[in-house]
């Protein structure tokens, strides 16, 4: 799990208060379906999805906005530009999306699942002020336990979910959310609806991209560490290496 880095697996953790729609977002993104009857998540679970990404580190937005239903990001580009997995071309990877329990009581176990994450998704419910206020708490919680190498640059994405509901029921304004995202270090922010499939794919594209960047960054550090004969001990000891 934790220290061992597997190439081409991008680990993404979804956090947020109970009932904000973490499971629904994951199901919508990976399986393209929605049900209002997902039970409260207990423990943790994950789903995986193959993605094809532009491997450049720039945040160039491609033609995906009108191609939401497509499972593969940059599908067109990857075909026309590069067919191999070179460092400058498109890259296939497996996105591993982790869904966790929202209730704080389970977090002391949840932290076991944070390690080795490449990106963390913070979700709130636009009709629930408290879940919005807790976004910062979730971020700090994650940084505290995930043991990431450089907390300042670790990628987060914020999702304001359930934007399909009546305006009257929304209690968190777009402005408030933008201010928060900015305040936390220019974190990308998306307004989504798992139920109506609004912005889910776009958001996850950004998530996958951030994760890939982070993964390569860590990979480089891993190589550096590995080449340094003195410092071959990783955070979890030798048994954690699964290569």
């Amino acid at each position, binding site marked *: 799990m934790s220290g061992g880095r597997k190439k081409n697996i991008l680990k993404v953790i979804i956090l947020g208060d109970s009932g904000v729609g973490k499971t629904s977002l994951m199901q919508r993104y990976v399986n393209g379906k929605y049900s209002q009857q997902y039970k409260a998540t*207990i423990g943790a679970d994950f789903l995986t999805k193959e993605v094809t990404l532009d491997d450049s580190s720039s945040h160039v937005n491609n033609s995906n906005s009108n191609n939401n239903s497509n499972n593969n990001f940059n599908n067109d580009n990857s075909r026309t530009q590069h067919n191999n997995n070179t460092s400058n071309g498109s890259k296939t990877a497996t996105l591993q999306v982790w869904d966790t329990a929202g209730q704080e009581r389970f977090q002391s176990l949840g932290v076991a699942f944070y390690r080795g994450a490449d990106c963390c998704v913070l979700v709130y419910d636009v009709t629930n002020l408290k879940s919005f206020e807790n976004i910062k708490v979730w971020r700090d919680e994650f940084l505290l336990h995930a043991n990431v190498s450089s907390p300042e640059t670790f990628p987060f994405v914020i999702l304001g979910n359930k934007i399909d509901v009546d305006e009257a029921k929304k209690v968190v304004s777009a402005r408030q959310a933008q201010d928060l995202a900015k305040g936390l270090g220019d974190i990308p922010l998306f307004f989504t609806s798992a139920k109506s499939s609004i912005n889910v794919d776009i958001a996850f594209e950004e998530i996958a991209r951030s994760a890939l960047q982070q993964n390569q960054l860590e990979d480089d550090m891993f190589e550096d560490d590995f080449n340094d004969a003195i410092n071959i001990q990783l955070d979890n000891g030798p048994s954690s290496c699964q290569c």
Partner: protein
Amino acid sequence: MSSGVLLYCKSKVYIHPTNRTSENVPGFLIVYKKLSTDPDSNSIITWCREDAFQTSPSSRSNNKKNILSQLLEADLEFAAKYQPTSTSTKNSYPTIRIDTSQLLLCSDWQIFISSVYSIQFRVPSSWWFGSIVINSKAKNIDDNIPVLFFHDDVCPSTKRIQKKMMMENFDPFNKDQDLYWGGDDFKQFLTTICDLQSVNNASSDDASSDILSSKNNARGNNIYLVNPTLEDLRNFKSNIQNLDKKPASPTSKNKSTGVYDSLNKQKWTILGKIADYTAKLTTPSYVPNLLSSYSPVLEKFLNDKYVNNLLKSSPQLQQASDDFESARVYLAKWALNVKQEAEKYRNVYENLSNDMDNMVTDEEIHVALERSHPLTLAKWESMFDEQGRLNVTVHETKDFIFHGGCENNEVRRQVWLFLLGVYPWDSSKDEREQLLKSLESIYFSSYKNLWFGDQVPSDMTKEHWKDEVFKIDKDVKRNDRHLNIYKHNTETGKLVNSDDQEMDSEVDDSNWVIINPHLNTLKSILMSYNVYNPDLGYCQGMTDLLSPIYYILQDEVLSFWAFVNFMDRMERNFLTDQSGIKEQMLTLAELTQLMLPDLMKHLTECDSSNLFFCFRMILVWFKRDFQDEQIWKIWEIFWTDYYSSQFQLFFMLAILQKNSLPVINNLKSFDDILKYFNDLKDLDWEDLMVRAELLFIKFQKIVAFVDGQNSLISDAPANPNTTGTGTGAEANIPIEDKLTKLSLHDPKKEFIISDRLRTLLSKRIIIQREKKSF
């Protein structure tokens, strides 16, 4: 030598200390009297193990052997005096002088007749030995008198009487279809030395309309008061008005003979028809055919271990097969029916035996596999006397539930209230009605009324309460919505017309309001529980635990109290510091290390030795991993605490064991393993339950062995001569081999069973409370 008179003696009366037949202990049921100058001196009932007369090679052995042969003779002598038809005439029993000090030495327990309150006679059935339960007046002595089982199939005196009865008055259509059994002559003997007053006769007197049930009482569970006072009788026979007119004797049974007679006439015509049919079957030309075609099979199956086990557990069948050749035909047919079962079982036996490293016996596997007799409503009701008081032991009841579960929700509705401690096991119907009234008023006055109608319970802040209600509301809305009662959000909970359908489909934003009455009740119960246990508060997973209880009971008050009691043991799963659930994970890890070392080695290599992948299953007792019907069975079995109050860990261990090979061969990482166990589908709960039982037995054996071994090691320097001759060690040698094979056992080193593992042997529920957080 202090001398006395032997008044009665019966051989082959067993106690069953465990549910393994191999551990049944044979002995003598004895009644004797000390010779003394006091004419009122009291008769004593006692029970002595057979082997108590045989073991020690001391100088007393001669005396003991003498007593043994004396008892064996007496057994037959008393049998000769038994009069099948007599119920009241005083037989003259022989009196045999005996050395009472020897009897005292050899007996497990003794009780004066005057201290006996009642004796329950339970006739044998095809699955049970006949047995008696002696209840003493002093409540606390009860534990010392185990249930006595009459093994009629091996008792020489009983067999002699049965043969005699068969010869003298054989009547296949006798209204008393039941065979004579060992308890009958004990009962008859008792009438000669004390006043035995049947408790159940009352019902056959005044409830003649309900012949079946009174017959059931008279046949199945006869309780007799011993030398009862009038008050005793009144307590038991609340329905008898003219008790004083009746002499307190066991002959008051004739009132309803008219009804019995007419019933008998009908029975005769029906039985006559059956007899005609049977006669056709048994004409000479027919029988040899049947016999010749069945006898090879018969011979084969009579040698089959499984069939033999069934035969042994059915004394009547055994008896029939001994006495009537024709019965063998039926037996053969019956054996054919079980042929497939037997073969299936043989494979199962082999697999299970291998999986348990051959550390469990066939007998133990047999007991664990015997799950085909769920508790039926009729059986459950027959376990209660007229006052609605359980008249079998709690242990026996739990044994029944542990090995079969409940047959349907009707019986489940009643059983769960006892299993979950809402009703005490020893309560009467009246007491339960009283209890229900107070439970109802406490529920409303102390809990529900404190929040009902938008109130905030007095000791909570508004914000905190709003938070809790919000969490509860969210989880109730997404709880088990596939079940019929929770499915539709309509005022009736049902879909009546298309308007309802529309309403129902509109409930899709997170702010919809619950109007389904059952979902609302779930919410009410959880809110009331929040007031009941404010320190713990609401925690995800609680809805999963409440939902099946309410589904079965469908009563708010009863479900609340059942849930409260269930939460007593489950609270440790939900503590803020997670200490309770972590403790269980650690226990499970140690248990897995001990029982499935290969798997544990692999899990450690995959960074999964913390067993996080078991978290969900343990937290909500497998609620998310099985179908609803299966969960009901699994939970009611766990609730019995039959072997251990933490049997869920053995069930988890069984899941691990069953999946060991695929895990070891295919899965290489924490993620893979978590995913594999999260997605397990269509688990065979019955097979897992059998394995869980066998794993427990194996675990128990390992602990017993390790303890025995350690005590030998620590004794060794002081008593070098005793090594290897200890009583426990010899029997355990095969286990030693197996332990060595498991590389657990190093003869030079002490292997310690941790305290954590030892808690698994306890049936006492572990209760851990949330500490007040504010």
